[in-house]
């Protein structure tokens, strides 16, 4: 039960408490760019969630089996060549380039998929769909996973934790961007002072939204207590 409790905690952490957009401030460009209408924002959020989950899966797999120091694949190759070798092969230098590579490929894949099955969504997302490639929220998720896998030793994350971080991180992004789009839709009806129109008021809203999410800080310790005790 402790284990399930920690997974739930991780999910709530990724989605709400340490929200990617509103706590770490990554993925701001689609957050501001595609949050004009709720339905488009929802589509963008879902696309990002999808990509981030795939990227989390691939990056965990590659980091665990190939890239981390003394990874199963590399050490197996080394031992096949020279059974007596004590050499530790460390391919962590490849981390960034492999992550970027994986993200770019999965974005391409999603783009083809959306174009085939949801043409209206494809049209409304426009240039922001290929731009998921450079969405830092996704690279951030990959790096977060790397931090907990590469060279950690016994406490390293398993695949389910990586997937939960990716998926609920994406859900957190979805929540943030849909909230933002809802507020901005209402804002069209408001009399915004002239100097603040456009980008100005958007930044202020984003700031206030981030402050609201700061209210979750500290919830995790209390939640951990409840979950662990409940698990007995």
């Amino acid at each position, binding site marked *: 039960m402790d284990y399930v409790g920690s997974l739930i905690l991780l999910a709530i952490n990724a989605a709400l408490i340490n929200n990617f957009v509103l706590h770490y401030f990554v993925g701001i460009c689609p957050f501001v760019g595609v949050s004009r209408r709720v339905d488009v924002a929802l589509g963008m959020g879902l696309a990002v969630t999808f990509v981030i989950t795939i990227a989390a899966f691939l990056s965990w797999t*590659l980091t665990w089996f*190939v890239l981390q120091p003394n990874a199963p694949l*590399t050490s197996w*190759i*080394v031992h096949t*060549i020279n059974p007596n070798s004590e*050499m530790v*092969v*460390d*391919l962590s*230098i*490849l981390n960034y*380039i*492999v992550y970027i*590579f*994986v993200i770019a*490929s999965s974005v*391409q*894949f999603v783009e*083809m*998929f959306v*174009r*085939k*099955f949801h*043409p209206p969504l494809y049209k409304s997302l426009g240039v922001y769909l290929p731009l998921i490639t450079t969405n830092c929220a996704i690279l951030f998720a990959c790096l977060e996973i790397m931090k907990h896998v590469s060279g950690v030793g016994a406490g390293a994350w398993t695949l389910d934790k990586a997937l939960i971080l990716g998926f609920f991180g994406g859900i957190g992004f979805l929540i943030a961007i849909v909230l933002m789009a809802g507020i901005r839709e209402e804002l069209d009806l408001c009399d915004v002072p002239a100097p603040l129109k456009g980008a100005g008021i958007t930044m202020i809203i984003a700031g206030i939204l981030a402050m609201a999410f700061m209210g979750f800080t500290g919830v995790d310790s209390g939640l951990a207590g409840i979950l662990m005790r409940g698990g007995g």
Partner: protein
Amino acid sequence: MTITIILAAAIMLILALLMGYVLGWANVKFHVFVDPRITAISKALPGANCGGCGYVGCNEYAEAIVNDGADVNLCAPGGDGTAEAIAEIMGVEIGSSIPSRPVVHCSAISSQRLKQNEYLGEQTCTAANLVAGVQGCVYGCLGFGDCIDACDYHAIKIIDGLAQIDYQNCVGCGACVKACPRNIISMVPFKSNKILAVKCASKDFGKEVSDVCEVGCIGCKACAKNSERFTMDGNVPVIDYENYDPENDSMDIVLEKCPREMLIWVGRDVS
């Protein structure tokens, strides 16, 4: 060290091959079928995206032709050539298309307009139209050239303060009609190269018109009495373009009777 470098290179290569294969598979699997006729029609259209056909752009129009069976002769800038090309792609016959062209219903150059006052405001028709007394006539051309800005084809010039349409360049997109704040430009079917047009829009009575304009229509109804193609709307004659046939209708008597020479042949010279 060497083995690390070789391994790194090998792993990147394998990853590249793997991803390339997956994406190539997805490209075939998720291939979106685009009707080749849409592509062909898009190429045949001029690509001006003027919106004259009533669709958002040339691509939208091409899709509408193929999917919704829109008419093939709606493209004004492309004209007959484009319509024929599209008809060939679609395998349909073109209905006879009569081109619409704008007519400016005013013929007074600035020296013929009376009771003008100096106007120092913003030099656009829209702004000047809001101010009373820029010139005596509240119907006629203001001459600040809002229509010139609207025209993408350099087909309107202001000559002596009056908008003149160059029918050689005009494609009939109708942008000037929307731009004119006094609504004195209207689209008219050009059944031949030259047609008659009433070049005045003033609905005032004759006395008031001659007070403010040296050439404006005084509403004498001479044209309406002599030809059934003319009807009076307010104090200004309107040509019934539906029935008007410039090739066969003889308008000599009307032209002769008009005391203000308000009926003018417009259109392009046959080259």
